[in-house]
């Protein structure tokens, strides 16, 4: 693939999330750098620039193959792929913060300058979020089982869900 602004091969693949629709950009190194610095100056005024930060982080030093591999990763709990997250800028479930941790960490540094929460903590609910997360997965699998007409599997899942729900 050629760079959209010159004849060199496009080695940087940027998804711009600011504005209405996500916009795909394929650029050579030089134009990618130019694009990122110009959009940085322009969009700094816009809303918290998740898109800018994400584009930055993903574009710098990542080849098309690496990006493609990254995009295919998906969350075992909610099923969202990294590509979908990149496209819509919204995560699918609390577990995404665990399964995409490696990709999200530089992004968090970019946005917040920090990666550790220091504020308020819930008083009541502590330590049971793992079983809560499991509920998201089991409910999804139950729905999928019903769609595939695997009713036996679905009813077992329903019983398991009930157990977890009552156990809390």
């Amino acid at each position, binding site marked *: 693939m050629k760079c959209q602004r010159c004849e060199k091969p496009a080695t940087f693949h940027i998804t711009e999330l600011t504005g209405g629709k996500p916009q795909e950009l394929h650029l050579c190194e030089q134009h990618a750098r130019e694009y990122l610095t110009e959009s940085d100056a322009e969009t700094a005024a816009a809303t918290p620039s998740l898109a800018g930060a994400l584009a930055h982080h993903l574009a710098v030093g990542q080849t098309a193959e690496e990006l493609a591999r990254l995009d295919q990763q998906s969350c075992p709990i909610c099923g969202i792929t990294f590509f979908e997250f990149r496209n819509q*800028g*919204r995560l*699918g479930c609390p577990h995404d913060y665990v399964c995409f941790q490696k990709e999200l960490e530089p992004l968090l540094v970019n946005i917040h300058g920090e990666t550790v*929460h220091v504020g308020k*903590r819930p008083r*009541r*609910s502590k330590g049971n979020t793992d079983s809560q997360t499991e509920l998201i997965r089991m409910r999804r699998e139950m729905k999928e089982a019903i769609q595939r007409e695997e009713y036996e599997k679905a009813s077992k899942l329903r019983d398991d869900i009930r157990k977890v729900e009552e156990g809390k």
Partner: protein
Amino acid sequence: MDFASLARTSGEWLRGAGPESDIVMSSRIRLARNLADFPFISRANAGDRAEIERILRERVMKVHESVDLTYVDVNDLQGIDRQFLVERQLISREHADSEGARGVAIGNNEQVSLMINEEDHLRIQVIHSGFDLSAAWDQINRIDDLVEGQVTYAFSDKLGYLTACPTNVGTGMRVSVMLHLPALVITRQIDKLFRSLQKISLAVRGLYGEGSQAMGDFYQISNQITLGRSEPDLVKQVGDVVPTIIDYERKAREFLIRESQENLHDRVSRAYGILRTAQTISSEETMHLLSSVRMGVNLGLIHDLEIPTVNKLFIYTQPAHLQKLTGGELDSADRNIERARYLRRHLNKEEDGREKN
């Protein structure tokens, strides 16, 4: 909820009182929260959303004993009623425009609103009149505790409150102060202010419209960072910069009076004149002129008008409010006529107690 009667009352935060209320319109804090056992909204199907709405509605309304709340099923509302809630700043535009099960619990004279199924499962918002962030924080913190007593929030030891968008993770808190900055706009200093605020990672946006083209010269300053700082720190970060901005705006107003008192007085008087006599007027022009009038009242150039009246006019001349007050749907041309009539009625009666024209 009875929208017709809501349309005749006005929210506490519009009363135009509170510290520095000549320049600071309102102080707002919101918290983003999600249930631990459901996917975020983007991965939630219709069934999940209905379940989230049912659970949160039930639990939030239990808080009703401590905070007087009324629940509105937003999905059931007519478009115009949703728009009305947006104009009133009780729900976001996104919440109004989205689909599926969703609602809002409104309370304490419109100071409090809890949106269910917005970008996150729950968005708690508190708005106070004037520059009053610490009271707003105390109130929202208490409400958050009450709700948390009823549900399990998605929370990680390391990352704090988990949100659909990584820009909100950690505290899930956005602290905003809405400022009326007409003199900085006239003296062309507003862009400079924008740039310096961005350097200290604060976001600025116009209340109505985009960027420096904000209608009515209202600007909202808020924190960008939500992770790695405590809630009181974030309140302080935004709160610390506000007195400086107020000071800039006051200096710009003094400059305008000193250097071109006639021009300023002329501008204010013409604006007032148009608003009192126009027969048809758009929403944009109304905001623009009301901004000059608001500054004129604060500078003592207009004597027969009160700030709460002007604050109210900003909200009540918006499309859904006008249509609620007249009790029917109006097209844009009819709205402009109705808006002019409404303005004449409210701006002329204070002089002699009855409508002129």
